Every structure is written in structure tokens, then in C-alpha cells.
């Protein structure tokens, strides 16, 4: 798996090292580098990342201030030249704490912790919600509230009982991201919430009045998934 990440670091040399180490690892994709927490927060309000390499002391807001304002919880590796933040780091449940400067070997140990934590989170997560980028912000949608997801080319439409959200994504990508126990692709253009299906007739299913086609390729899997007595 590739992890998307950003670097928040006011020391250019330290950021350059991190970028090189990430490239060398082959599994960390650095999307952006910010010299301060404020700019990073603007980016994070519209973009999801798996991991943040975060300096603590920077001009303006600190790394801890940034974590206080995050609306979701990516993994964080603190990168600092001071050891006295270790207690705070523990309180914030960061994945690791790298003291600058650090070697590639030490960096790899951190990445192993990221992978381990990801595996633990995946096995214990409630997975009751997702965040989507819509209307210039990250919007939290409870799985229960999503009726179905419809393809619109390079965009998809999330339909809830109250509202429709359009976001830049694809059905193919979402198929692997949404909760597989609850959601299912029934057609190349549709993913549906199985618990919200009202009825099924032939090759069509109905959710709150909407008619959704079931493709031949997906029909047998759909029938296996639903409880037919």
C-alpha cells in the first residue's frame, strides 16, 4: 500500500531529507510540504492524507496546535530536535517520534510502526463513517445515511436521504474504500448501501424511490449478500 503524506517542517534541510527518505522507501507519497502549521491546516481542510510528518516548534502555531484542529485523524510522526515533547507526543497518540537528525534506518522503523498501526486500526475500527471532499471542505457521512453512490464520469454523487454530495472520485476507487460488509457495487455506475434496499425486481433494485440497475455480472453476488428466505 502507498501512504499519502504531507510534511510540515520549517527547516528546509530537514524537509529535503524527509522527501528523499520517503521516495527511497517506495511506499510514502509526499503530496506537499508546508513551512508552517497554518498553511498545512488549509490544505488538510480540503484533502485527506494517511500520514503527517509534523515538526513541533514552528513560527506561529505549533505541531500540537495543528493536531488540535484536525477534523479527522491521520497518523502523525513528530519530527523534532527536542526530546522533551515525548510526554505530549504520547498524550496525542502519535505513531512515532523522530529526533532530528535521523538516519534512513530510523525512518524505516517509523514507517513499520505506521504499517502496524494501520493494520491494527483496520481490524478494530468501527468503520461507521467516511469523509468526502465536497463543497470545499471535508464532510463526514455516516454509513447509515448513505443510500447509494452514483458515477458521474470523473465524479461521483453520494445520495443520502436529505442531500446529494458531488465529489471528485470514481466508483472503481470507492469500491475498495467503503465498508465491504455494508456497501456493494451492483453496476459499473452504482454502489449501494445493502441495508437501505427497499426491494428488488428482476435486474432493478429500489431505494427510497430511486431505481438502480443491477448488472448481470453483479446479480449473483447481490443475491448472495441479501437475506432471501
Amino acid at each position: 500500500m502507498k501512504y499519502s503524506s504531507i510534511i510540515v517542517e520549517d527547516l528546509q534541510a530537514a524537509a529535503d531529507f524527509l522527501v528523499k527518505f520517503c521516495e527511497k522507501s517506495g511506499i510514502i507519497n509526499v503530496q506537499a510540504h508546508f513551512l508552517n502549521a497554518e498553511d498545512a491546516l488549509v490544505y488538510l481542510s480540503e484533502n485527506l492524507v494517511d500520514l503527517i510528518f509534523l515538526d513541533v516548534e514552528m513560527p506561529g502555531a505549533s505541531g500540537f496546535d495543528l493536531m488540535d484542529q484536525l477534523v479527522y485523524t491521520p497518523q502523525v510522526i513528530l519530527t523534532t530536535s527536542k526530546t522533551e515533547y515525548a510526554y505530549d507526543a504520547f498524550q496525542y497518540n502519535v505513531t512515532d517520534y523522530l529526533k532530528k537528525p535521523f538516519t534512513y534506518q530510523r525512518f524505516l522503523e517509523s514507517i513499520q510502526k505506521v504499517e502496524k498501526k494501520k493494520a491494527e486500526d483496520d481490524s478494530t475500527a468501527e468503520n461507521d463513517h467516511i469523509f468526502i471532499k465536497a463543497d470545499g471542505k471535508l464532510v463526514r457521512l455516516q454509513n447509515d445515511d448513505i443510500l447509494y453512490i452514483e458515477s458521474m464520469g470523473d465524479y461521483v454523487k453520494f445520495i443520502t436521504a436529505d442531500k446529494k454530495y458531488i465529489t471528485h472520485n470514481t466508483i472503481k476507487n470507492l469500491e475498495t474504500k467503503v465498508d465491504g460488509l455494508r456497501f456493494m457495487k451492483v453496476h459499473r455506475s452504482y454502489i449501494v448501501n445493502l441495508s437501505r434496499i427497499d426491494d428488488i425486481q428482476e435486474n432493478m433494485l429500489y431505494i427510497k424511490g430511486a431505481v438502480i440497475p443491477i448488472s448481470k455480472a453483479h446479480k449473483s453476488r447481490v443475491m448472495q449478500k441479501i437475506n432471501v428466505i
Partner: protein
Amino acid sequence: MYEEEKDNHYVFSEHFDRQFLEELYAGDTESAAEVFQASLVQIVEEMKLADEKVAEGDIAGVRKIYHKIKPLFGYMGLLSVQDFVQHFEDQCRDSVLMSDVQIAYDNIKEIIRGALSLAREEQLKLNEYNNRRA
């Protein structure tokens, strides 16, 4: 054969933490030269700013600048200098008046002057080595 070269492999001078630098750069002497160059420039610039903060009596500002440049000594394999800077940073944190840390400030500047001199020398050696290999 230059003294700093063994079996065509660059060897950092004895003043530097050789083992750490070898782990950090893994033979990439081009990167090492770039980092030395950039660090030297930045440290000199930041120290000038620190002098201004000292003149203003802004002890927190001085501490922040030294906190920022501290890891740069680490990237140049001068880990003991990094520790000295940390100690100075702690003194700034625990003091109220600039006069309380004036002697420590003069001392750390003297230590850094020596460190920069060694780092400049090393950077020249790195450049020579890289030029010979080019």
C-alpha cells in the same frame, strides 16, 4: 590519494561523527555537500537575526532561532555542537533577562564559529571529492 579517501570511498574528517554521517548520507557525497552548503548559509543568516534579537532583549526570540538551527549541526555530523546548542536553548528557556544568558550566548557563538570553520573545510573537501569523481 587524498587523506579523506579510502578505497575510493569518502571518509569524513575526524572532527565529525563519521559513523552517523555515513549512515545519514550512505555514500551520497553530492547530497552531503549540498546539505553542508545550505546549512552553513542558513546558520550564518540565522545567527545575524539572533544578534538582532539579543539587542532587543528578546530572549524567547533568541531561543527560537537557536532551536531552529540546532538540527543543522546534526546534519553536518557535529552532534556535540547540537548538544551545546540544546543546552543554550534550555538556559534561554529558564531565564528572564538577556543579561542572564549573555555569557552563555557569547560562549555558544564561539563554539559555533569553530564548528562553522570545520564545516566549511569539510564542504571544500566534499566539493573537491565530488569534482574528481565527476
